[in-house]
């Protein structure tokens, strides 16, 4: 089974030891980006996974490509050219101090890419699944067009499409997001969202839920999922449910709605002690795509995806570097954290 994901890969620069930026004289150098993170997850689970983007030909672009190759992602479809690799500076929070993210991603190679850079018919040869997120069309009108072309080519070949709404207020306005995502979601089969994204992008709200108060309202999430599925004809809608107790401790669970059967499946809830939450949502997406591609039931799929994501929160960096066996074990109920010998 072959999955293709498309988006922006950024340099991630992060001070060590929870330092603030103004203290740091060393920065950890790694890479990350929503769709690339999903690709690494899937490659780790053993699927044939290709990542598509545009990166400069220089050493920094090469380092970005290599970071994916290292984990077995097929990088042969990456277009090379342009000037810069976008950067995000991540100052990790702890306890009551939230993380701070400084984006320096404008004018990156992918942001300045043209439709002609990508031959989607060729890219989707032999593919079964295409994944992108709302971050990619947020990069500019050219990327909205490129995403649409990708979706159309995927649809024509019978490739399933998943999209994580992932609203980024620093990249576009709610109005721009609503317009573009309303257009693109016509092609999408599986939608991943959280309640903030559904509200920010489509104005769809769960009644009586306070996202900052950390209280969950099951009926509200069902209503959000159903409204999304009804509006866009999604086959499945996944809603991730983060309860932010502090920057270090979150509750984490999800719900998967299957439109055909009308089934709403809630996962078990994990109380997480966070090592790194960046890429947490992406690891959920990766887990979900794997579960759906391998024929798991709705309940099994959401348990697998949440377990994968719970483990990601314990791993440094954007990428979810866990094995299939580790996820299966946790999803199967062993969350003891005992040493495996």
């Amino acid at each position, binding site marked *: 089974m072959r999955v293709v994901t498309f988006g922006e890969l950024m340099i991630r620069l992060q001070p060590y030891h929870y330092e603030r930026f103004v203290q*740091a004289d060393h920065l950890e150098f790694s890479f990350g980006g929503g769709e690339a993170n999903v690709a690494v997850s899937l490659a780790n689970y053993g699927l044939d996974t290709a990542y598509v983007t545009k990166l400069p030909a220089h050493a920094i672009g090469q*380092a970005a490509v290599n970071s994916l190759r290292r984990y077995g992602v097929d990088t042969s479809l990456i277009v090379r050219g342009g000037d810069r690799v976008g950067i995000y500076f991540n100052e990790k929070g702890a306890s009551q101090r939230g993380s701070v993210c400084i984006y320096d991603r404008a004018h990156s190679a992918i942001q300045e890419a043209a439709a002609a850079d990508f031959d989607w018919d060729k890219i989707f040869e032999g593919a079964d699944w295409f994944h992108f997120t709302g971050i990619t069309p947020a990069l500019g009108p050219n990327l909205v067009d490129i995403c649409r072309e990708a979706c159309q080519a995927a649809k024509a070949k019978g490739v399933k499409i998943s999209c994580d709404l992932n609203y980024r207020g620093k990249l576009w306005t709610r109005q721009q997001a609503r317009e573009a995502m309303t257009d693109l979601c016509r092609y999408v089969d599986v939608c991943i969202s959280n309640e903030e994204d559904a509200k920010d992008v489509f104005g769809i709200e769960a009644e009586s839920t306070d996202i900052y108060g950390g209280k969950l309202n099951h009926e509200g999430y069902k209503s959000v999922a159903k409204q999304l599925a009804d509006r866009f004809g999604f086959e499945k809608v996944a809603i991730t449910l983060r309860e932010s107790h502090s920057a270090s401790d979150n509750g984490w669970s999800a719900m998967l709605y299957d439109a055909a059967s009308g089934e709403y499946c809630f996962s078990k809830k994990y109380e997480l002690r966070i090592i790194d939450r960046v890429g947490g949502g992406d690891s959920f997406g990766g887990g979900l795509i794997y579960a759906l591609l391998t024929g798991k039931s709705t309940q099994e799929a959401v348990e697998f995806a949440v377990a994968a994501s719970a483990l990601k929160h314990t791993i440094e960096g954007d990428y979810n570097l866990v094995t299939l066996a580790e996820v299966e074990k946790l999803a199967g109920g062993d969350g003891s954290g005992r040493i495996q010998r």
Partner: protein
Amino acid sequence: MAHSGSLRFITIGEIMLRLTPPDYGKIRVANTFEASYGGSEANIALALANLGIDSTFFSVVPNNSLGKSAVRMLRSNDVHCSPVILSTPEETPTHRLGTYYLETGYGIRSSKVTYDRKHSAFTEYDFGRVNLGKLLDGFDWLHLSGITPALSPSCAQLVLDALETARAKGMTVSFDGNFRSALWSWEAARDFCTQCLPYVDVLLGIEPYHLWRDEADHSRGDWKDGVPLQPSYEQQDEIFQAFVARYPNLRCIARHVRYAHSGSENSLKAYMWYEGHTFESKLFTFNILDRVGGGDAFASGLIYAMMKRYKPMDMVNFAVASSAIKHTIHGDGNITDDAASIRSLMNMNYDIKR
């Protein structure tokens, strides 16, 4: 803190985030960068402040933790940064601090710089809003480089306006051509920097400038045509004479000459024209820890020696010694904080001081 000497120095330019893999590493396999901050003019401000000169830096950085970190690094080195503008996203839409990646060479492998400085806050800022008369008020010495005009039209205008203002105020002006091929063409650089020459008192480096043998007939070539990178005393003297004949405002011209035996061992010397004579420094040979900022340390050494009214031979030797010692210091700036150690080096005294 009281500064020795009364001359007040100011420089204008871009400061960038420098990202370097530790231990001479390659970017492709790095997982850590040393993060430091530098830029030609900032390096000079820092070096002079470390030597006790009253030194001020003007620039624009984005008002975020990265811009503030750059300013704090300079402040920690006693550089006055009160004129620095922390810009808003409205003033500088891309709102970024210019960045450059440096792979440090070793032995036969050269260092490699990859710039990521386009669209920086400094290049996007509208300097028409800066009151240069007020900015330069009370300063004796202005230093500029040929990097700034390469960055944007607004930056180029800033350089011309600053030169004009400094002349009106009777300030001493030093200028380092600092040609950067990644930023503009050789021809564009020569065209622009030649316009600056009538304003300059102290010229560092002899390129990129037009120095036509015949202003009316360019086909007769440039005085510098065919002169090797490592010229003889006579060749250099002839060029200095041509410069001062055309630009009698030039009080001093200095250029260093590098002999790169490898990426890790170089020799440096310098020629300097001053008070009607060409002087040649001693030749310094040294191992290189970090050569970025070597030219800036030469400039700061010369400026310091002039401010302190050193004798001509001491001026040029101090400048080369300052550059040589910078090559042994990690980071962009010459943080040497006692002039005596540079003077000691200048006299080729390498013994441990006890």
